[in-house]
């Protein structure tokens, strides 16, 4: 892993900030592009602070992963609360039997392991305790 991609991605990696399309409302995160993936509008973005809570749209539970990951590990596609955004996240403190479509969750961004002296982060979610 070289420095330039880390430098390019620093805003995305350290701020939970998305871009919202002024034309169609699509929220881009974690990837930013000049052209909206949903409607094709060019340079029509406004910065939005993303919500840390959301709802499980769908999920799976991984039983086989590289040793850095504890299994079984639920993984989900989470729809963030307004202003929106859809992310792919791995779970923490969540058992297979806890999982269901529609589960309310809180989402965080945490280190999952070290590689080559660098911290390797990922989205993590856990059930929301309201």
């Amino acid at each position, binding site marked *: 892993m070289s420095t330039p991609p880390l430098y390019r991605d620093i805003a995305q990696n350290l701020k939970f900030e998305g871009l919202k399309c002024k034309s169609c409302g699509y929220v881009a995160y974690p990837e930013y592009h000049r052209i909206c993936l949903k409607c094709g509008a060019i340079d029509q973005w406004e910065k939005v602070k993303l919500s840390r809570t959301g709802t499980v749209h*769908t999920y799976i539970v991984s039983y086989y992963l590289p040793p850095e990951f504890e299994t079984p590990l639920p993984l989900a596609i989470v729809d963030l609360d307004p202003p929106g955004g859809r992310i792919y996240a791995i779970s923490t403190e969540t058992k297979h039997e806890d999982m269901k479509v529609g589960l309310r969750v809180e989402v965080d961004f945490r280190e999952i392991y070290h590689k080559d002296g660098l911290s*390797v982060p990922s989205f993590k979610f856990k059930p929301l305790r309201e």
Partner: protein
Amino acid sequence: MRKEVAVIGAGMIHFGELFDKSVDNMIEEAYINCLNSVDKGIEPKEIEAAWLGSAYERSGASLAVPTGLFRIPISRNENGCATGSDAFRNACYAVKAGIYKVVLVCGVEKMRDTAGGLIAKAAAKSGIEMWRYRARTMPAFFGLRGTRHFHEFGSNREHLAMISVKNHHNGSLYPYAHYKFETTVDQVLNAPIVSWPLGLYDCCPITDGACCVLIAHADVAKKYTDTPVWWQGAGCGVDSWMRGLDENLIGFPATAIAAREAYKMAGITPKDIQVAEVHDCFTVTEMLDYEDLGFCKKGEGHKMIEEGVVNLDGSLPVNPSGGLIAKGHPIGASGVAQIAEIYEQLRGTAGKVQVPDVEIGLQHNIGLGRGATGSASVVNILRR
């Protein structure tokens, strides 16, 4: 019907864990089998161009070494797991355009030379810039569609198991299949879970393989065979779940787009399809394919297997070769092998898995895109 581009030969090899065979060994065998399959014979010097489908390793030019096809144009085509069918599609366009009269399409993939297989290397923990998809795996991305389909439409793991049982049954009869054993719904449901809702027998194996087909322009096709199979049309669609559309998590819109284009070009509807080889890297993929290819309505895919429509003796047999689940999925070879199987079916030479009296067949693959699978899809339609 469209009579512009004909398939005139097809050469398979036995798919499997071929540790004793190199990429070149596999290509040589498939290529020579393909030459020998042409009814009235063909000389290599009659081949004017070639397309190579390989997802991971080779340039087009490298195909010249094992085939001896130097000094003709050879291009490599790559489009994720749709690589082989996309190579075939592009080769057909070139023949239809009248640029070449006889073209070779070769698909190959060496999946088992790396520890854990090529996919394990590719999927789970790529560089730091890819943290966004950490712990992603192929069964994860397909399984995510399954869970949502269960939630919205009432399908379940038993439906998926029935697809596994069907494809393993077909594979047990197909001479070139990697896996040749029968299984039961109970065995599939009780197998180790890989990525819930997918268990071991819901997943295709990691397989080495190669396949070649020869196509010819209508002007010369009869020189090679009296029973050609005519390419009727193709489609290709590209999409991504990252666009935020819900339809991307209950199916593959890319497949629907590719199918629409192919049906339109062929001048037929889904009801005209009599046999199909579709992408079943996982059982859930095949269930979604039924819907996206228009064989049934969205949300009714599980009824196709429940009612036995897609069984070998059903009204629309799907994956008579055992599909990727039993035959294996050597990426670049998979699509070309599906074409080879539909070619045999339409000529009535498919042996124990022959579907009686079929005239129109469909071939379909789904491929990986950025950060997610199911992003590229290719459909080809053939007719005798």
